C-alpha cells in the first residue's frame, strides 16, 4: 500500500461540522435507497392495495366511502410506515455502518434525526403525494382531501420519529417485527385519532385550526425528543450486539 497520502498524526483533528455530517448521512441513505428501488415501492404498493381493497371488501357505496375514506387512508398510511420501520437501522446494523455512525464525532441524536428524515422522505412523503389520487377514489371532497394531505404531511414524520425509537430498541432481536408493532402502535394511536379527527371536523365544516395546531405540537415534541431516545436505544442495541 502506498503511504504518500497519509496525513500527519495530529493530537486532535479539526473535526467536521455537525450539519455537514448530517447532510452526508442523509445523502448516503437516499443514495442507497435509490439503488434498491423495490424497497422504496413496497410501502407505497401496500398503501394503494389496502385502500383499494376496502371498497371491494366492505362496500363500494359512496355514502360509506365518504364517511370512512379518511380513516382508511390514515390507517393504511400508518401500517405502511410501520412495515418500513424495520429497514431503518437493520441493514446498517448488519453491515457494520451503524457502528461507524455511532462512533462519528458528532452528537448521535442529530445523525439519527438525519437518518429518520431520510426515512420519512422515502416512505411518508410519497404517501402524502399519493393521497389526493386515492382520496378521489374513496369519494372524498376537495376540502377533505386538502385537510387529509395536511394531516398526513404533519403526521407521517411523527410516525417515522416515534418508529425510530422502536426500531432502535428492537435492533438486537432476531425477529423484531411483532415486538416492534406492540411497542409502537400504542404511541401511534393519538396521532391516528387526531389525524382522522381533523379530517372529520373539516368534513363537518368545523374549524380545523385547533386540531392542526395540536398535531403540529406532536411533531415538535417528536422532533425534539424522539432522536434522543432513539440514539440512546441504538447505543444499548449495539452494546449487546
Amino acid at each position, binding site marked *: *500500500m502506498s503511504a504518500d*497520502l497519509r496525513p500527519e498524526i495530529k493530537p486532535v*483533528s479539526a473535526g467536521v461540522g455537525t450539519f455537514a*455530517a448530517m447532510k452526508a448521512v442523509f445523502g448516503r441513505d437516499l443514495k442507497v435507497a435509490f439503488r434498491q428501488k423495490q424497497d422504496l415501492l413496497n410501502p407505497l404498493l401496500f398503501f394503494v392495495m389496502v385502500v383499494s381493497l376496502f371498497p371491494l371488501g366492505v362496500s363500494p357505496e359512496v355514502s360509506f366511502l365518504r364517511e370512512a375514506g379518511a380513516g382508511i387512508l390514515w390507517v393504511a398510511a400508518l401500517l405502511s410506515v410501520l412495515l418500513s420501520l424495520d429497514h431503518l437501522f437493520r441493514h446498517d446494523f448488519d453491515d457494520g455502518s451503524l457502528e461507524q455512525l455511532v462512533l462519528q*464525532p458528532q452528537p448521535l441524536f442529530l445523525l439519527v434525526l438525519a437518518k429518520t428524515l431520510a426515512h420519512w422522505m422515502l416512505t411518508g412523503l410519497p404517501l402524502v403525494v399519493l393521497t389526493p389520487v386515492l382520496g378521489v377514489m374513496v369519494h372524498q371532497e376537495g376540502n377533505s382531501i386538502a385537510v387529509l394531505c395536511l394531516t398526513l404531511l404533519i403526521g407521517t414524520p411523527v410516525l417515522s420519529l416515534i418508529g425510530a425509537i422502536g426500531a432502535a430498541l428492537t435492533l438486537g432481536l432476531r425477529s423484531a417485527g411483532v415486538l416492534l408493532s406492540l411497542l409502537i402502535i400504542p404511541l401511534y394511536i393519538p396521532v391516528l385519532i387526531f389525524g382522522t379527527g381533523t379530517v372529520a371536523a373539516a368534513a363537518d365544516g368545523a374549524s380545523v385550526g385547533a386540531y392542526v395546531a395540536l398535531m403540529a405540537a406532536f411533531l415538535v415534541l417528536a422532533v425534539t425528543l424522539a432522536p434522543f431516545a432513539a440514539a440512546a436505544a441504538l447505543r444499548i442495541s449495539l452494546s449487546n450486539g
Partner: protein
Amino acid sequence: MSEPLLQAVNLQCERDERVLFRDLSFSIVPGTVTRVEGPNGSGKTTLLRILAGLNDAWSGELLWRGEPRVNLREEFQRNMLYLGHRTGIKTLLTPLENLRALMAGRRPLSDDVLRQALAGTGLAGFQDVPCRNLSAGQQRRVALARLLVADEPLWLLDEVFTAIDVDGVSAIESLLQQRAAEGGAVVVTTHHDLRMAGMHRIVLGGGLDDER
C-alpha cells in the same frame, strides 16, 4: 515514554454470566502496536469494542489522556478510528461512494485523494464498481483504504487481516509499523502471526481458565 492515550484500570467484563477478563490493566502509548491475543471466545473483540466505546457492559476505569473517558465522548471519537469485524461497507454503493461516506463525518477529502487511497489498497480500476460485485477481500480493502487517509492518533483494528491475501497482509503490517514509528497508537486483534519489533501484547483467556 510519552503519555498514554488510553489507560485501562482493573477492567472487568462478564458475558452471559461468564467472566471474560478481570483485573485487566494496560496502557496504550503513542508509537506502539499492541496485539490482543487469546483463543476464540476469550473476549478479544469484546475488549476492542469496550475500548472503542461500543460496549458498555464493563466495570473498571478507562482513561483517555488521563481523564475518565465517559466525559469526553466526542473528543475521544474524533481521535479514534475503529475498524470492526463488520466492515461498514454498503454493498449497493461503489468503493468510492463508501469511502466518501465513511470519511464525510471525520475528514472530508476530494475524490482524487479517495481514488488514490483506494488504488493504494489494490482497488485501482474498481473504484466505481458496486461493492456487491467485489470479493470479500476486496470489500475489506475498501474499509482498509481508510487507514491510508486517517489522521486519528488511536486505531482499533479488529481482525483486519480476514480475507486479505499474503501480499496485502504484509502491506498492512508495514503500514501499521510505519504508523507506530510516526507516533500513532495501534491496537489489533488477529489470529494471524504478527511479528513486529517492540510489539506490546495483551493476552486474554489464559489465566482465567485455571480458576474455573
